[in-house]
């Protein structure tokens, strides 16, 4: 049996290591942009081992990052309306 002091110590230790899902998804987002510190990385890995929902968030967030990467380089082609083209051209002509 653990004595009371050990229990309190264990509890504190758990809290300093274990992340909440809120915090875990914060780190998952952060690692899409920068490298996490060793401590953050370890905390995240431990959380992910035990949390299926955050594992899903991690995978889906990576899928989104990949799609966003495509969006970044090729803007989907769009056309300026002909009315707006005429309007811009007229404004430019006035200036020129």
């Amino acid at each position, binding site marked *: 049996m653990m004595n009371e002091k050990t229990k309190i110590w264990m509890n504190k230790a758990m809290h300093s290591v274990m992340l*909440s*899902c*809120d*915090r875990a*998804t*914060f780190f*998952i*987002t*952060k690692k*899409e*942009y920068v490298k996490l510190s060793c401590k953050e990385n370890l905390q995240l890995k431990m959380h992910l081992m035990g949390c299926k*929902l955050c594992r*899903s*968030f991690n995978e*889906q*967030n990576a*899928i*989104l*990052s990949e*799609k*966003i990467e*495509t*969006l*970044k380089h090729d*803007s*989907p*082609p*769009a*056309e*300026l*309306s002909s009315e*707006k*083209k005429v*309007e*811009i*051209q007229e*404004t*430019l002509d006035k*200036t*020129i």
Partner: protein
Amino acid sequence: MTTEEKHKHSLDPTRWVKEHGDYLFSYALSRISKKEVAEDLVQESLLSAYQARDKFRGGSSERTWLISILKRKVIDYYRKQSRNPESLTDPFMIPFHQGGAADGTWISEHAPASWDEEILQDDEGVLMEVLQYCISLLAPKMAATFSMKTLDDISTEDICKELGISESNLWVLLHRARLQLRECVENKWFKEL
């Protein structure tokens, strides 16, 4: 004329709308998602470009030069939007329990569901559209931070300076943007198909 001068690019403002209008508009729309705003930014950019034509050195193509002016306009727009006092109270639904024994754990109706692999592979085009639509729903400050950091690779320091936010604020906004995007894509794409 020296060889160097021959290779320099020149400007022809009379053809800007015809030759670069759609291209500039596509870029603006991919960053702003609001048609009218994107149109106006293209117009403002071309007028600014005309006024600044003497500064064009010919080192880059006409199109690259025009895009660089438009990029600046987009950032100015973000800045104005995010400094709008209304954006201080941007609504955001936190998908986690707040307080109590379940503090910081997922609220079940907002938690990630599994995404169907087959749908993922078959409907990539639709996913891109949904993603753009979901980005357009982000509140101004979140949208600005997310676009600048993710789409334009602007440094954290510069974003904080432009938007007047702290670095920890930036990470909170990116976290929220990602939470909202994920849930929006899931609802609009997987559940409504």
